[in-house]
């Protein structure tokens, strides 16, 4: 579910899901730092029952990239 990505991000970063878009990134979300990014990876792995690689984690630099990586990992977002 696309919305679930936003929900997970909203929860980790402490912002309303409605404020997030595919373009959201550490550039415009104050709470998205290296510490919360680790929390985000764990939360995404749990929420979508996937295992992410260190490269995947490094590449998740925006909501759009999170969705692309999760799709590659077979998360079935649609």
């Amino acid at each position, binding site marked *: 579910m696309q919305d679930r990505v936003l929900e997970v991000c909203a929860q980790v970063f402490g912002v309303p899901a409605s404020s997030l878009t595919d373009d959201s990134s550490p550039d415009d979300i104050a709470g998205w730092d290296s510490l919360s990014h680790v929390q985000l990876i764990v939360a995404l792995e749990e929420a979508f029952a996937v295992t992410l690689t260190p490269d995947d984690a490094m590449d998740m*630099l925006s909501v759009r990239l999170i969705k692309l990586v999760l799709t590659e990992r077979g998360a079935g977002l649609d």
Partner: protein
Amino acid sequence: MTDDFPFTEGQTARASLVIDERVISAFAEFSGDRNPLHVDREAAESYGYARQVAHGVITLALVSRLIGMEIPGPGALWRGQEIEWLAPVFLGDRLEVRLTVRRASRAGRTLVLLTEAFNQDGRMVMKGEARVSVVEKISDRREVTPRENRVALVTGSSRGIGAAVALRLARSGMAVVINGRTMTDDLERVSQEISVAGGRVIAEPCDIADPRAVAALVDRATRVFGALDIVVHGASTPISTVPVQEVAFEDVKTLFDVYVGGALALLAAAVPGMRERKFGRFVVLGTSSLLGTPPAGNAAYVAAKSALWGLVRASAVDLGPHGITVNMVSPGLTVTQLVEHVPARVKELEARRSPMRRLATPADTASVVAFLTSDEASYVNGQNLPLVGGPV
């Protein structure tokens, strides 16, 4: 190349001048030499001369004219003069001054000149010897074809970056020769877009990997538009992502033929005309893969583009003295059909990692190419301009 020391022993130059009141009074005025012998007829008579005697250095003024304007001409630096005045020159005389090259030292860039002056009766009134240095120009803003009359050839301009470059150059007033491997709807569309906007364009399909076809292409461009001033080499063939151990030399050669072979053929065909006109611009399309760590699976592409970059640097050295610059523009991942095979994740990641947070566009490259082809870029040569939205 024009000989910048075209002097031979025995070479001569002449100048003549009628010594009238105007000449004498003008010299007296600026030099302050108002010796009555020169400026007052009665005084001249009182010294035993029938007419006023001209200032001796007026003769030298003609020597100066010949040195500055004839032999050696502009760039002359008059270093020394031995002189003997043999007879007076009078008001009303017709003076003829003659320079003859006695010695021409190319190594020393120096001329020794015999300087002689005669009156209207053929009598020698002055003789001497001048030493003149021929100074080399260290900077030269050459006269070039006005920008609006320039002609550009853009290889690989049926779509993507090449098409954007062709449109951009046409918009700046250049006549443009567009090119694709074959005549396609895309090439036709670019041609129409330029024509509709009032631009001058011809579409000339040919295989850039074929040197004979390239020679014919340049010949056609020159015949239609009268010259070829600018070449932008953007042609490519489809690129695939393959691990290096699976790359055959044939794969590299295919790209090499288009990038390096094409560039060599374009240089061979276009440089003679550019040298003649002392103006030329080559801009070749590089890749950001040359700038940092190359992306995985691109061995053939990176190898061929690296070779092209080597050719750019070497050509810049050879052609710079002729007013021809050779540069490369290396955009980051640009959204065109050429990179259709690149996964969405890679494209998105490249955009996120750029300080500008986006991928390059064809227009980004077109504007930099337009700059490199301009007069303003006449001192940019042998460079690879990164277009990646930030430091690399």
